[in-house]
């Protein structure tokens, strides 16, 4: 059992007691509640502890001794009622103050306590004993207090705690749960309460805050929806990109095969023809491809002022319209990135091989990353040699497997941009040549990419 008394009640009792010229007694008002603590630990599932907490809220001093009992210690119920009046139901105990005596219940106190327990109907009536000890020369005075529960056989003494008194290491100021019974307080709150509380008794501020909170929640939910949608679109586009890449790879392989066959055919036709004949054509091809390297003056599409993307798009459109056979893969819409201003979706880009080398421009400066998967191309974007091209053709899958993590749409789209612009500027060459038409495409930030990224 734990007991607590508010500081002001305690000081009030002390005041009344200390100012009396004899022994002093009175009643304690308050309430008793049961607290159950359930603790769960690793060692046991749960253990419940019941604690009875006694709280003393107020006290009712008696004006004189023997006011409700007689010489024999018999309690007079009428007198008791006239003292307590309607506070009788709040009585949880009584107290006595006597100077210079032992901290033990006296004969009469025990007799009275038994009767009070019965009359008031409180089974665990408590008794608070104050004792004032002074030294002989009145230099030191000690106020001692002990709380008894005499109706128990064992553990009769309980510690009485006074919140906020004693342990100064504690920083928090404890608020007690003593109910406020002041009439004036209730009146004032009633008068001015409407400004702070709404009809349900809930503070208005709380409601407002809650509304803000709900609005934020809604917005977050909406954004979630949008994010989900855009994620789905992105997924779809990613799939498309992958498909197109596969197609490109396929086409490359095909063109490579054709070329090989052509070469073989050429070789068988003219034995005397030196290998160098093919080389220049290849090198010329390559030189066309390697437009980033300074030693490639034949880069067809280099111009001091790269056209803007919008021009390219329009050119694309014209190109596409002129091209004869758009492949199925060319007819892919160009998706938008999230949060960016939209681009007009161009018409299906020509997947014609003629487009392959048309994007010999460094369109790295363009800030509109758009993924344009429609153009088939061969070779990597940075104008490396045919070795890499072959590697590219043969080992497409490997390269793709070696993709770096920071693959992003921007790079892809820039490559595709280049692809688009190339198609506009490069002259339409033979299909065989154009098969290698993928120029070195700069990623937007100028990095030369070693492999075709997806």
């Amino acid at each position: 059992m734990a007991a607590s008394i508010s500081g002001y009640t305690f000081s009030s009792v002390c005041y009344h007691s200390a100012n009396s010229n004899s022994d002093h007694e009175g009643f304690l008002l308050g309430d008793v509640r049961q607290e159950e603590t359930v603790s769960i630990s690793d060692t046991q599932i749960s253990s419940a502890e019941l604690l009875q907490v006694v709280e003393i809220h107020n006290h009712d001093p008696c004006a004189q001794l023997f006011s409700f009992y007689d010489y024999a210690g018999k309690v007079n119920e009428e007198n008791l009622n006239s003292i307590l009046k309607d506070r009788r139901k709040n009585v949880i105990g009584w107290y006595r103050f006597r100077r210079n005596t032992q901290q033990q219940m006296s004969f009469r106190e025990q007799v009275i306590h038994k009767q009070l327990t019965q009359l008031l109907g409180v089974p665990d009536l408590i008794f608070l004993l104050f004792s004032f000890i002074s030294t002989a020369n009145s230099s030191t005075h000690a106020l001692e207090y002990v709380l008894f529960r005499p109706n128990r056989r064992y553990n009769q003494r309980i510690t009485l705690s006074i919140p906020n008194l004693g342990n100064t290491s504690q920083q928090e100021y404890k608020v007690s749960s003593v109910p406020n019974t002041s009439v004036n307080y209730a009146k004032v709150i009633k008068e001015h309460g409407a400004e702070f509380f709404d009809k349900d008794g809930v503070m208005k501020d709380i409601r407002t805050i809650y509304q803000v909170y709900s609005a934020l929640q809604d917005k977050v939910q909406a954004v979630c929806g949008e994010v989900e949608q855009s994620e789905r679109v992105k997924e779809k586009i990613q799939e498309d990109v992958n498909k197109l890449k596969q197609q490109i790879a396929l086409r490359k392989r095909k063109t490579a095969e054709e070329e090989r066959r052509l070469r073989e055919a050429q070789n068988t036709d003219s034995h005397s023809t030196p290998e160098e004949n093919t080389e220049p054509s290849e090198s010329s091809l390559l030189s066309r491809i390697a437009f980033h390297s300074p030693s490639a003056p034949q880069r067809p599409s280099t111009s001091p002022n790269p056209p803007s993307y919008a021009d390219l798009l329009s050119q694309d459109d014209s190109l596409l319209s002129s091209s004869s056979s758009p492949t199925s893969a060319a007819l892919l819409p160009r998706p938008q990135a999230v949060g960016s201003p939209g681009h007009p979706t161009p018409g299906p880009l020509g997947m014609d091989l003629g487009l392959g080398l048309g994007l010999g421009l460094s369109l790295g400066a363009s800030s509109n990353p758009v993924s344009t998967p429609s153009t088939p191309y061969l070779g990597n974007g940075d104008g490396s040699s045919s070795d890499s091209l072959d590697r590219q053709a043969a080992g497409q899958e490997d390269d793709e497997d070696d993709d770096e993590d920071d693959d992003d749409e921007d790079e892809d789209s820039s490559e595709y941009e280049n692809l688009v612009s190339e198609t506009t500027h490069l002259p339409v060459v033979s299909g065989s040549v154009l098969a290698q038409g993928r120029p070195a495409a700069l990623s937007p930030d100028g990095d030369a990419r070693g492999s075709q990224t997806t």
Partner: protein
Amino acid sequence: MNNMSPEVALHRISPELRPLLCSVVRNGRVGLDSTNCLRVTDLKTGCTSLTPGPCCDRFKLHIPYAGETLKWDIIFNARYPELPPDFIFGEDAEFLPEPSELPHLVQWDAGNSECLLQLVKELIQQYHHYQCQRLRESSRLLFEYDSLLEDPNYGRNMEIYAGRKNSWTGEFSARFLLKLPVDFSNIPIYLLKDTTLDPGEDVALLSVSFEDAEATQVFPKLYLSPSIEHALGGSSALHIPAFPSGGCLIDYVPQVCQLLTNKVQYVIQGYHKRREYIAAFLSHFGTGVVEYDAEGFTKLTLLLMWKDFCFLVHVDLPLYFPRDQPTLTFQSVYHFTNSGQLYSQVQKTYPYSPRWDGNEMAKRAKAYFKSFIPQFQEGAFANGKL
């Protein structure tokens, strides 16, 4: 604060309460052991510390009971002296008398100076009942108690202290304090006058301590009021037989009682015998008697002459005369020893029989003197100097 003399206590107590305390400390005797008055210690006040004195209104009262001393706190209120006191029964936390059994509390009359003393007596009675209740813990001791209770000689004068030495774990023990119904009234007054203390009531108390509930360790002890103890010969009078193992009080106590009674009888007899003896010597030796103890008849001095040799004979009669032989001390009137005393010789063994009456003893003594004196004279001349 301790061992406060009653006068100091009376001085410090609040004037309105003084009469009540007065009767307690001056006349207060409760219980069987009334040789000691009730003692008052630890006088404190219930008024504010700035109240001018004397204003003490609460104190500790020491009450002898069954060999123990009860220390009860008595609490008054100096500002309301008409109100009855409150009590704290010290270590007997479970002692709670029924207020209806305390008439002097229910009808407390502060004007009656005896009221407090009477109330204390009633409380002691209730306490006795409470202790007897506690005897129920041991059937053996309860039997002892009941058997004694039935005997009218002892039942009414019994104090019991029962309980555990240590509240929880100690062995159950009990002490019976019984007042022995021995009649001391015939003891010659002279024997009782020698004590320096106020003799009080002559009482013999037998205290029997049972150290365990099965009565295997029993320690009896006899207490006599100081005058009786002196009259019966000092601490030797306190020797009593040991408690027989397996015996019970109802057999043992009468035994002790009888022993004591016999002693008293003997002492009384002895007195009369001595008186007779002295009377006989007086008649036989007549003018030879120098002096004798006319109250207790314990001493007699004779001045005798034999063949012009004068000598003194001092006769010391022991307490248990005639069982014990009187001591004769012969003293020369002429000779001194080296230490400046008169030369003397003590004779403890001489023909004697306790069955002789006074006359016979006187005659025999005379005969013995005659036979012994030559020896003595020679010795005196030889060893003493003039």
